[in-house]
């Protein structure tokens, strides 16, 4: 056997052991940064032919023949009802979130954009729609156009460029970080592989990866795994305890992804209020946005990248 290093691995980031890194310092001496990403996403009843949707995408009773009004409408609950409960819960605890906004929401629901802007939320791109997921099935040209169209829709609706990106269903091709960097995106939320930001270096420039806590993502816990909601609250608290303990050697972060079609239901929202209230009560937590986490990280790079 020659060189065992695989050429089939991911291309843009280095292996980096968290115990070997220089300490990361958050503002105010906080040991852990906490932020919330709220996904505002549209499930098309009729995505174009060839659009890729993973078979286990939540909604309805599996991916059914067209027109699957149950899956469509179950997801649409988030935009019509659920998101208002989520915003109220975040408001109550004075938490500015990052809204991950897809192109359909940006174009069709200016009211929601205004709600985010009124709250001074950060805006991240979230692809075109939930029913058009990026993967290697897209050609380079298709993917570049897709990302550009998604970012343009957000910029048109918001009047500012999105600095962050979260692909629908965490979907990427092998090339996505390079296209994001090329199109001026500063950070990406799709790689749940760390508790600190890290740099991705692509041929088109660098981009910060801000990993989210996938295993606490409401869709994973409450849809795919169906753990009890009380247990979710406890799990978030336990995660923060551990991060605070580990934070002795440098700051870590927890980014919680929320989906209003799910967590915004009447019987679930109280648990979100509890989770956010718990976070508010902790003194060692820097409650911030994903963009600020990426910024703070960048400013501490030795190169000042």
């Amino acid at each position, binding site marked *: 056997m020659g060189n065992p290093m695989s050429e089939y691995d991911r291309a843009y980031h280095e292996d980096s052991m968290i115990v070997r890194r220089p300490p990361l310092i958050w503002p105010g001496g906080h040991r852990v940064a906490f932020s919330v990403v709220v996904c505002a996403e549209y499930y*098309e*009843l*009729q*995505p174009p*032919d*060839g*659009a*890729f*949707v*993973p*078979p*286990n*995408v939540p909604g*309805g*009773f*599996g*991916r*059914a*023949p*067209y*027109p*699957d*009004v*149950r899956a*469509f*409408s*179950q997801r*649409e*609950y988030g*935009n*019509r*009802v659920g*998101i*208002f409960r989520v915003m109220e819960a975040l408001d109550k605890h004075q938490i500015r979130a990052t809204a991950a906004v897809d192109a359909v929401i940006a*174009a*069709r*629901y*200016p*009211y*929601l954009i*205004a709600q985010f802007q009124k709250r001074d939320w950060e805006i991240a791109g979230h692809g075109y729609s939930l029913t058009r997921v990026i993967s290697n*099935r897209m050609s380079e040209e298709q993917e570049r156009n897709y990302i550009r169209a998604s970012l343009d829709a957000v910029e048109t609706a918001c009047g500012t460029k999105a600095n962050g990106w979260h692909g629908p269903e965490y979907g990427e091709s092998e090339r996505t970080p390079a296209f994001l960097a090329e199109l001026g995106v500063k950070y990406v939320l799709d790689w749940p592989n760390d508790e600190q930001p890290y740099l991705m270096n692509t041929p088109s420039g660098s981009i910060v990866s801000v990993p989210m806590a996938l295993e606490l993502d409401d869709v994973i816990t409450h849809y795919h795994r*169906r753990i*009890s909601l009380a247990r979710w609250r406890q799990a978030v608290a336990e995660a923060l305890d551990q991060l605070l303990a580990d934070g002795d050697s440098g700051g870590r972060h927890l980014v919680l992804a929320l989906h209003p079609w799910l967590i915004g*239901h*009447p*019987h*679930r*929202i*109280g648990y979100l209020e509890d989770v956010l209230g718990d976070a508010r009560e902790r003194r060692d937590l820097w409650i911030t946005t994903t963009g600020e986490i990426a910024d703070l990280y960048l400013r501490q790079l030795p190169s000042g990248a």
Partner: protein
Amino acid sequence: MLHESQAASGKFNAGIQMLQYSYRPQFPSTQRTRNDVDQSWIDYLPISERPPLVWPGNARLAVMVCPNVLYYELMPPPDPWINPWARMTPDVMMYGRQEFGSRVGFWRLLSILDKHNVPCTAVLNVAALAKFPEITAAIVERKWDLLGHGMYNTRFICGLGEEEERAYYLDMLRITRELTGIEMRGMGGPGPQAATENTPDLLAETGFLYYADFFHDDQPFPINVKSGRLISMPYSVEVNDVPIFSTAYEGDAFVEIVRRQFDRLYDEGGRVMCITVHPAVIGQAQRAKYIDLALQYVTSFPDVWFATGRQIAEHYMAHHYDIVVEKIRTWRWATR
């Protein structure tokens, strides 16, 4: 042309349900003739922007209790889209689990519903009326509302042409009228996949008032149709024993979900709370007491309107439909 995702979705993943329905690995595409169907059916007017919904007697909340009355066939005709018994043919285990509902579960559930004296809206496979005359008599005696759920839970409506689908609804209405004297006003499609492009138009045309396959809201909402009027009714896939008991949850979790759902909606006011139960699931010996506890909780509050789907739909049509449509027309953020 098939979506790649559709081609990939041989099975779907919903706990014990996975043992029952599955989609055919390469199901034929269904006809697409309309563009942008989703937006033309329901306009965007978020709940925060709607005029307050006022229930009769100024009740804070409308509660609709929906027991399913289903008819599963052991050896149904083959369907090109959906396999009703995914494990094997025949599947006496999964069939028997469902049949328990009509033989035992329904009667156990009925005694609890009677105890709390709540009006019910049966989610009904119409063929069950002929198959189970004792159940039919119990429904008629209690004056339940009927929310049609197709003819059988093992035959589906995807792929029906417009004429066939119209005839299907007219048959459902006629058979129901003949066997119960009840005019059915609500509909949701049978099995896991529920609609064609023509479904809302045909429901409005054939005399239905409400459609229960749109899960997008906590209130009824207008569905745009070619002629007549149709509204969505907030049927629940959340407060529903099937998804709940398809997981590691048991009865205590069911009660907790009901309690929290009720508390929040009661607090907000002007909403519909739908409690969906299946005799085969909640009617199990180890679970029945939990629907009892859940109903005990929701019936312990003042100012709750326990209503049928038809009562809610008629009230909405009479007092709110026009107001909401007008608001949609004039809302400054509207986009079509």
